[in-house]
């Protein structure tokens, strides 16, 4: 299963990266006369209420969350990793202050923080990504802190110290890379899935990605209650959302097993 997950995720990233090269144009592909055409050769998944090709929109919609998802991961790493590592490494007052910050942010439900940020700073994918990344950073930071604090005084580290390994190298190579990389990957995958859920939910509720640009969320919002829309406008985006979330979970499970096994 983990490898299937990796494959799926690489596929989605690939589509999001390559789709701008395709000649499809969200603006030009409007023709109300062919609205709700069923699946066929020309439109493998049929068309929506404005006669737009569902398959193309499905593929294009991957951009709505892949870019912001990666940005959110970067933001989260940028804040969560150094703060968590500092707290774990120095402990004492530094750790107390950093962990207090973590607790404050974690006390506010993540979804609410993101919603507030969007309503304040404008409804843009970058705001969504940065807000989600920052809201998730304490969770990542806490995890890193616990891991490093646990190992800091362990025999494993003491042994390396005895061999004359420098403190920086010890922290960067042995602790962060050696002991935390799978943990990091697991959290970033969780964040990525969280962002997908956020983005599709907000777009569904009319607060995220806006027409004419497609999102799996806003595709779900529109066509369900039309007469004669068929099932495809519902089934296609719903399945896609499920698959991507499932993929992140599969990979996370694989990483967790590897970590426990190692």
């Amino acid at each position, binding site marked *: 299963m983990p490898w299937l997950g990796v494959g799926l995720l690489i596929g989605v990233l690939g589509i999001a990266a390559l789709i701008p090269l395709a000649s499809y144009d969200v603006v030009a592909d409007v023709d109300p006369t062919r609205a709700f055409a069923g699946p066929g050769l020309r439109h493998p998944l049929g068309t929506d209420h404005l006669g737009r090709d569902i398959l193309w929109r499905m593929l294009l919609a991957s951009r709505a969350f892949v870019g912001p998802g990666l940005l959110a991961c970067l933001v989260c790493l940028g804040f969560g990793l150094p703060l968590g590592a500092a707290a774990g490494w120095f402990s004492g007052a530094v750790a107390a202050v950093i962990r207090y910050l973590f607790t404050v942010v974690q006390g506010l439900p993540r979804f609410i923080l993101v919603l507030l940020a969007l309503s304040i700073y404008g409804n843009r994918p970058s705001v969504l990504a940065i807000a989600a990344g920052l809201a998730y950073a304490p969770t990542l930071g806490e995890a890193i802190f616990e891991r490093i604090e646990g190992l800091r005084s362990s025999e494993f580290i003491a042994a390396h110290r005895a061999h004359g390994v420098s403190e920086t190298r010890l922290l960067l190579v042995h602790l962060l890379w050696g002991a935390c990389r799978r943990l990091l990957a697991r959290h970033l995958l969780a964040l990525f899935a969280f962002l997908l859920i956020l983005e599709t939910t907000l777009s569904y509720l009319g607060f995220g990605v*806006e027409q004419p640009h497609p999102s799996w969320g806003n595709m779900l919002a529109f066509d369900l209650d039309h007469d004669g829309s068929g099932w495809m406008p519902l089934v296609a985006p719903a399945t896609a959302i499920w698959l991507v979330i499932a993929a992140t979970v599969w990979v996370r499970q694989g990483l967790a097993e590897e970590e426990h096994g190692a």
Partner: protein
Amino acid sequence: MTRLVPATLLMLSALGAHAAPLRYAEDRAPGIVNPAFATSMSEARINELIFEGLFTDSQELASVPKLAERAEVAADKRSMVIGLRREVTWHDGTVFSADDVVFTIKALQDPRTASPEMGRVEWIANAEAVDPHTVKLTFHQPEFAPEDKLHFKILPAHHFRDTAISRSDPFRNRPIGTGPWTLTSYNDDNSITLQRYRDYWGDARIDEFRMREVADKNYQAKLIVYESIEALVRVLPRDLATLQNDRKVELYPYQTNSWWYVGFNLSREPMDDPRVRQALALMVDVPELLAPIGTGDRVSGPFVPSSPFYNHDVPVLEQNIERAAALLREAGFERDGRTWKRDGQPLALRIASQKNLETAQDVVINLQTQFQNQGVRVEATFLDISDWKRQIWTDRDYDLVLSLWTFDRNEDIHKQFHSSGSRNFSGYANPEVDELLDKAKATTDPQEKRALFRQAHAKIAQEQPMVFLWTLDSYAAMTTKAQNVVIHPFTFFTFAPSWTLR
């Protein structure tokens, strides 16, 4: 599923002796039921059931007395005396009197009240109670039809201590009016129940109204089909077909006094060039834009065709690609493959529209497609109301807007097209038009006003500060159980007293 549903669910108990209510859906429940602070349409609608003004609209949309019984305007048109109905009582039993009218005007004018309705009374210089049933109003300047401006709702003076009224006053959800229905409960599920006021001075048939909040617009039409509500204030165009085919639902068309437009930002290149504006206007296939969102009449200028001020001599613009291309070339653009370019820069514009304007999305998407097919790249954004006001009205940071203007019966386009107008964000300025609008504002002669506005219509249409699109037919949906239904295009429930429900 088939076995499970009937087994687990309760049956609807017969409603029996209690008359069924008329349930209608709103996207958002009224936030405050105090006419002094009404800002949304849902508030305007519910106020129409609970409160009354001195005058109201007849079914032909002419001003007729409501709480007023008779009115006399002085010969110099600078004052009027209004005799009030004597048999009217407030919902708490108190007798309605001239003090209430005077209080309402003073309260709306009081700057401490900070009422969004302030503008409706600023033309009144003074209001005094001559006797308990007579009010005298004096005006700042001559008014030729003051009764048209006296539709605002009257508040009960005895409820308030001071003319500075506050949003926090308990009146906000326990209002007292003189209207046919009284608000009996503001419920926990955001619904509002209104019952017929037994001592109402006039006639009203329906026993109970219930406002239901249905935040998901996609869902409203389904609910009337499922008979979960009886009335839908505004049907989305895409739901029209479904409702038309439903034998238990009747559609009521009504025309609002509003028209749609694509506005240019005249202070920006290249829209400051009238040839470019003309060219862009000629690229638009208006009927194709209108078709997916409903039916309506096209307009050639800033009035609706049914208005006395509409100039029928000005023709509506038809799509003309060749002429558009010729105009763009004149303005220095060259067609480079699929796109128009000037000095190597492609012609690319940003169009903004309001997020809560439900049908605007489809129009913008279609418009984008049309422009793009003609070699003009257009990027779309949808703004919420506060972003809209800041970005468009204040910062004027846009190229094109798709929006609409809605007018009251005065159809005063001064704000939109006068160079000093407060809503003139496009930056339109023409001394001739300014003069025409000033004169129209000052005149007391309806004939002259008509002539002036028609001239202004022709002048504005010629300069093309915006592409005038259409006035859209709106549809209300109502169960066939409701009869005698006439709908007011703006306040919706104005004629509700004569409705009946089987």
